[in-house]
């Protein structure tokens, strides 16, 4: 057995031909014009409307938090690659996307060093330790958010109402557009409290829906303006960077479950769809459905699997929000489904042409 990359051609006086170094791997071989960098770039573009509305509503804080998260994420990936002696991967822009997503999940008033810690954790522990891009088993941005929720719960749950506009009946702080961002509960906490003490009135929230849609409500940096997120999400779907199945299944399932249990006793009136609409516009559901659940590494690759994944996310969000102790269910729902994604993939494998099912 020759250990050199040479082949014995059989002719004794001829120099052995050098075998070209070929990289062998098994199928599938897919050639695509979309590189990782391009996909990340379009995701960043899709997140820009949200970033802009966030800066408009929350001021310079939103921009600072985002900037710090991005810098921390890129720096962490650079450092981790050095430490683990791998080639540098910061050129594929995935660190920037993770940084932005972490920032979108944080309240704008969070101390910057906490934002940096979350970002570093997301990159190092949820991504680099497992092998880098493509090897993480959960969404890094959500892992970072979960870590921060466990570490600094007080700072992670103090929100501010934006600079203008308020939700009548939902916030307990006196609203005045002259005062910069007042601490108050998010719409979801307010509705949870209203449910708890019985002061919930469906019509109160009709006015709130408009504010939720445009974004003048309290919340995390990226989750307040449903409209901006919708624009970004539709853009991603239109250029086929993201499969419509996951967001559609997610949002429709959450809507349907809240509609079925909407508490007004009716099903086809305007009243009955206020609560479900409220729930899909609030709490970062659009952010989760369009940008985080669709992460190709941590969601199933099969079409049917994606539908199941989306439905699962929606169902878990419903359960956590309605019956659980947290007002925010999206991040934990997606994390739980991430864990199950490989299982879903296994059981929804499309049949290979000619494959015969084993009996017994």
């Amino acid at each position, binding site marked *: 057995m020759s250990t050199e990359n040479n082949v014995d051609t059989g002719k004794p006086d001829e120099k052995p031909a050098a075998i070209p170094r070929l990289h062998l791997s098994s199928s599938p071989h897919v050639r695509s014009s979309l590189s990782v960098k391009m996909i990340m770039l379009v995701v960043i573009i899709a997140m820009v409307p949200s970033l802009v509305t966030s800066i408009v509503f929350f001021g310079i804080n939103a921009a600072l938090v985002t900037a710090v998260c991005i810098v921390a994420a890129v720096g962490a990936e650079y450092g981790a690659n050095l430490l683990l002696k791998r080639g540098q991967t910061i050129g594929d822009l995935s660190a920037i996307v993770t940084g932005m997503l972490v920032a979108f999940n944080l309240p704008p008033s969070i101390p910057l060093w906490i934002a940096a810690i979350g970002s570093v954790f997301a990159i190092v522990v949820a991504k680099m330790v497992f092998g880098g891009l493509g090897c993480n088993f959960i969404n890094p941005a959500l892992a970072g958010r979960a870590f921060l929720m*466990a570490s600094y*719960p*007080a700072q992670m*749950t*103090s929100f501010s109402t934006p600079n203008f506009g308020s939700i009548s009946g939902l916030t307990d702080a006196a609203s005045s557009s002259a005062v910069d961002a007042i601490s108050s509960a998010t719409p979801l906490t307010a509705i949870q409290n209203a449910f708890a003490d019985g002061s919930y009135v469906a019509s109160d929230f009709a006015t709130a829906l408009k504010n939720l849609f445009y974004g003048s409500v309290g919340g995390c940096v990226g989750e307040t303006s449903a409209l901006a997120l919708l624009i970004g999400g539709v853009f991603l779907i239109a250029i086929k960077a993201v499969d419509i199945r996951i967001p559609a299944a997610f949002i429709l399932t959450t809507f349907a479950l809240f509609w079925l249990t909407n508490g007004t006793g009716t099903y086809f009136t305007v009243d009955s769809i206020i609560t479900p609409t409220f729930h899909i516009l609030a709490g970062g559901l659009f952010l989760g459905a369009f940008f985080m659940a669709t992460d190709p590494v941590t969601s199933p690759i099969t079409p049917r699997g994606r539908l199941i994944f989306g439905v699962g996310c929606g169902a878990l969000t419903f359960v956590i929000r309605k019956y659980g*102790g947290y007002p925010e269910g999206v991040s934990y729902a997606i994390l739980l489904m991430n864990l199950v994604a490989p299982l879903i993939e296994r059981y929804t494998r499309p049949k290979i042409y000619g494959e015969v099912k084993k009996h017994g």
Partner: protein
Amino acid sequence: MGDIIKLTLTLTIISAIAGLAIGVVNDKTKDKIAAQQEQARLEALETVFPEGVRIVEMKNLGAGVVPDLYWIAFDDSADTVLAGYAFEVSGIGYAGDIKFMVGVGIDGNILGLTVLDHNETPGLGSRVNEIASAKYIWYPVGGDDGAKPWFKEQFVGLSSLKPIIIDRNLAEWHKLDERTQANLRNNNAVTIITGSTITTEAFTRAIGQHIAGYLEELGGYCCPATRKEIEAKKAVEAVAVETNDNEDNDTALLLD
């Protein structure tokens, strides 16, 4: 068959010796343990009441919600009789019951709280007994800096007659500034131990469920009374009983 007998016999002998060993140790330590628990109870009583009161143990022989054993504190100075009560209450914590002693004044305000027994997770729920020391490792000065267990401290001054609210959004009590702490007290609220909501709820729920009922049943003493007033009241009652007999006769005559 002989095999099974041998196995059973070996196991039995080992278990018997083991049981004997535990029994001997138990015997030797039984009194010490009981003494420790009694000591803990005495210390608890001293913590839940303010300084300078005289504590009397009361046995409740009647039926009703008041527990069989409770304590009354008398403040013998300034002629005031009653300082408050202490009850041993049990709340359902994360891992079983939490037995604690709470001292309440006659107006229902909590004077103090001490945990007697719990099974909570060390590092999480067991922080009910934590004393937030402000000492640093670089120059630990001797003696204690007077720090109190903050979790129990936050209950002092709250009313046990109203539901105690849990504020989940604020940091732990010892990290808050004075104004926020005063705010919480005004709202009859406490904050949680991070990661141990259920432990905190055990306390608030147990207090809310039991104390108001106990105080109501011991109701004869509900309002502040000096010794003189109580004796005067007793005298009036004695006279009333006598005059009642006479009065009844009068009214009876009138009605006829």
